[in-house]
């Protein structure tokens, strides 16, 4: 029976990235994927004739340029296109347009609130400063602060140096920032509630926290630290959908001699004498490997596809208590035409960007209260994008599809398990919210895919449908991700590694987790490092 050099469990974008780097280093690698298609949560599927949804993740700004460039993903078909403009809908018809250029944006904000228009400069500057520090860590393995190994000490010194370089005042601010709520953080800058709410939106996306919960300020940062070609905070679409990212990485992997097997779910990671030796597939087939890399989240890995007996004491419990609560849903809608939003000018730049339906800070907090009580809010936070307005390849000409990200949606309902009826009622709530701002919206709907945490977990495998593979709170970041002591991609079992977003630097379609993990594997094999370590080049 063949023994692979490495088997990677899960063909999400990080697993594929990991495999591509191992294959390029000459390893014989196989990626096994439970679904009949690849991509994990960076996936695009045609569920209605002519419409290609990005079924889970829908925009991209974290993708590491260094990896895109190094794996030559453009040659493998990947083109990332930035999109412009956002419209924010408040309560009672209040709305705000965000323009893509600084001058237009300033004029718009000034008309609404001159104080906030000025404060926006300081806000963006501060966020960029914080983001810059985090960005420097993205393609680096977190140091173990308890280790005396020269490498860990050196890395701690690097972090310390970067941190001290912020200056005295900013160090205080930075520490506050990590434990603040998005709402408190924004109170330092803005007066206008809708501006605050608009800026707070990224602080709750994908997280079981409210705008007023401590820790949500960091989530906000995590969402704005990406960039498209150096424009920090800009967002892009992958031409052909988010699945194009996975497909391009898969193509790079295959070019390097790696293989992918779909319809090959892993039932168990095989462990012998404390060493990972392969996997057993759902079909019962066993595959041997010198290295096993899990791209599944930490909770699923240790509680679902491993035997508790195979794990050192305490790991199972750590995994069971890993914070990976489901809090969001997704509705993908095929439309016969472009929705018309009341009071929004027919302007090609703002009509073709994104929309955020958020009400106010209070509306968002109330939606969180509903989540805590095991139900979804009648007035949810919805972030939408119409990718077809930018990408001619994802819908028939003149028709469109709309991606709706919904916060919050509980993984478990107070009134019993999810049913198809409840799922559809959740979808109707989202559609009603949009209809409020775009009368006639419902008449445009040709097809809708409604995904609650239940569907996302069942299909993609993310525990509770958590988009980040584990929440991005300080107790689960950097050297604490996924667990203290296991942040360097090596798992408690010998020859077993983790490559997914449960590891540093966390969620987002960045390829960083998979790349960092590959670097550590090559290091253990005594191979030369071929994984980029630097993506910030003197920002």
């Amino acid at each position, binding site marked *: 029976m063949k023994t692979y050099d490495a088997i990677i469990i899960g063909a999400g974008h990080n697993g594929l990235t990991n495999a591509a780097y191992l294959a390029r280093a000459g390893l014989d690698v196989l990626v096994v994927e439970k679904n009949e298609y690849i991509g994990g949560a960076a996936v695009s599927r045609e569920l209605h004739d002519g419409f290609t949804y990005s079924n889970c993740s829908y925009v991209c700004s974290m993708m590491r340029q260094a990896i895109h460039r190094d794996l030559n993903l453009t040659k493998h078909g990947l083109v990332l296109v930035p999109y412009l403009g956002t419209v924010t809908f408040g309560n009672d018809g209040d709305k705000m347009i965000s323009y*893509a250029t600084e001058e237009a944006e300033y004029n718009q904000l000034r008309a609404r609130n001159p104080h906030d228009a000025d404060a926006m400069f300081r806000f963006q500057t501060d966020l960029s400063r914080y983001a810059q520090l985090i960005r420097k860590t993205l393609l680096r393995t977190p140091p173990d602060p308890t280790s005396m190994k020269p490498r860990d000490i050196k890395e701690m010194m690097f972090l310390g140096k970067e941190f001290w370089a912020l200056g005295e005042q900013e160090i205080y601010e930075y520490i506050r920032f990590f434990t603040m709520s998005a709402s408190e953080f924004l109170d330092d800058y803005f007066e206008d509630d809708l501006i605050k709410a608009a800026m707070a939106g990224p602080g709750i996306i994908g997280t079981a926290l409210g705008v007023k919960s401590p820790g949500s300020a960091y989530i906000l940062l995590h969402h704005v630290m990406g960039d498209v*070609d150096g424009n920090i905070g800009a967002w892009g679409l992958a031409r052909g959908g988010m699945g194009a990212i996975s497909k391009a990485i898969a193509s790079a992997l295959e070019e390097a001699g790696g293989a992918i097997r779909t319809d090959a779910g892993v039932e168990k990671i095989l462990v012998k004498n404390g060493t990972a030796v392969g996997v057993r597939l759902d079909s019962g087939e066993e595959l041997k490997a010198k290295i096993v890399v899990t791209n599944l989240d930490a909770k699923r890995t240790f509680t679902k596809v491993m035997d508790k007996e195979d794990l050192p004491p305490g790991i199972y419990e750590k995994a069971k208590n890993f914070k990976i609560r489901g809090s969001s849903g997704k509705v993908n809608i095929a439309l016969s035409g472009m929705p018309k939003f009341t009071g929004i000018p027919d302007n090609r730049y703002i009509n073709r960007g994104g929309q955020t339906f958020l009400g106010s800070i209070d509306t968002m907090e109330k939606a969180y209260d509903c989540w805590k009580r095991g139900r979804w809010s009648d007035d949810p936070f919805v972030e939408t994008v119409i990718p077809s307005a930018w990408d*001619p390849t994802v819908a028939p000409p003149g028709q469109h599809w709309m991606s709706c990200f919904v916060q919050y949606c509980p993984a478990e309902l107070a009134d019993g398990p999810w049913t198809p009826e409840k799922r559809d009622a959740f979808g109707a709530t989202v559609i009603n919210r949009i209809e409020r701002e775009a009368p006639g919206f419902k008449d445009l709907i040709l097809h809708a895919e409604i995904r609650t945490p239940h569907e996302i977990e069942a299909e993609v495998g993310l525990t509770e449908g958590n988009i980040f593979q584990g929440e991005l709170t300080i107790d689960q970041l950097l050297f604490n991700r996924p667990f203290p002591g296991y942040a360097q991609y090596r798992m408690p079992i010998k020859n077993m590694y983790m490559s997914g977003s449960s590891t540093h630097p966390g969620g987002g379609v960045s390829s960083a987790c998979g790349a960092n993990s590959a670097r550590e594997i090559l290091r253990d094999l005594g191979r030369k490092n071929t994984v980029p370590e630097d993506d910030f080049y003197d920002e």
Partner: protein
Amino acid sequence: MTDPFAGERLKLSHFHERQAALNLRNAWSSWNGYQFAEYYFDAEFEYFCVRNGCGTYDICPMQKYYISGPDAEAMLDRMVTRDVKKLKNNRVTYVCWCTDEGRIVDDGTIFKLGNDKYMLTCGSPSLAWLKQSSFGYKDVVIEDMSDKIAALSFQGPTTCEVLKRLNLEAIETLKPFGIMHFPFKDGTLMVSRTGFTGDLGYELWIEPHLAIEFWDALYAAGDDFGIQPYGESATNMARLEAGFIMPDMEFNEALKTIHYQFDQTPFELDLGWLVDFKKPHFNGRRALLTERDKGPDYTLVKLDIEGNKPAEESYIYSNKSCTKHIGYVTSAMWSPVVKANIALAMIETKYLDGELWAEIYYEKELRQSSKVARCTLKKKPFWAPARARATPPHPY
């Protein structure tokens, strides 16, 4: 009231009315006396329209000459370095023409519109050179059509689809460098599969009185395909990715060059393939033969440069310590689509086999810094999608 500044003002393009309405930033520059958009909204956005959807670029200011008569072919063949006799009806060819010393006067395209009828297009006014080149040929008429033809460069992956929606029959069968004619209102639309972006694209030629009507028809057809006007900045990005040269960037027009040999030969610009020594005498032939045999002192090359700082106006060195200066960058940018730091550079040919280092100066919040980055030679254009050459074009 008469405008006392009337004579100072720039000419307006045949498409001005529509373009001005979309020029939200009032970002105008000029080209050959025409008011001309540097960008309309955002240069990078417009660049992405060309790479992702489609865009129009105003080429009304480009110079266009009809050269006709029984001697037209012989005259052009004598003037340019390529063999014009090989050019078939309804085909276009890229050419350059040189002084007797083999230095490039300009580059451009020749359209063969019929027997004894050609159109030459180029960036700079060339009437004087054409007249001079026709000396001794009896039956050749040169007509400056620059202001008499309205034209748009229409570029990007969805262009063929948009043209199909204008009911241009069999447009998908048009091959690169081919020409087709279609009736439009009371006139004729000429479509050539040409452009300056390295992508799928066409150039659209129409009588000036139909310009606005045609614009409206094109924009109506293109609405679902991301149509957008783009300006000089986006063009410059796209052409650099395609590896195309620009006057005043890669070459200094010979007739405008003061210093001895500060202009360029086709071989220096890596355009040796444009020079056809199999044909009889042409302007600059003898000098170019010598140049071919000894090899050019400098060669224009494509560079992939480490890091992400554009190597604008950088010097190129043969060593990391930057003691041996061997060339200079002519154009540089971060390529958003390729995700690479790309440049064109003129480098002393004899050093091309060795190491290449660029000394890059850049600014971070006013503070000046520099870095030395390793350069890798690239043979092929940075961006050359298969759809640009395929007939029928691949689905967008």
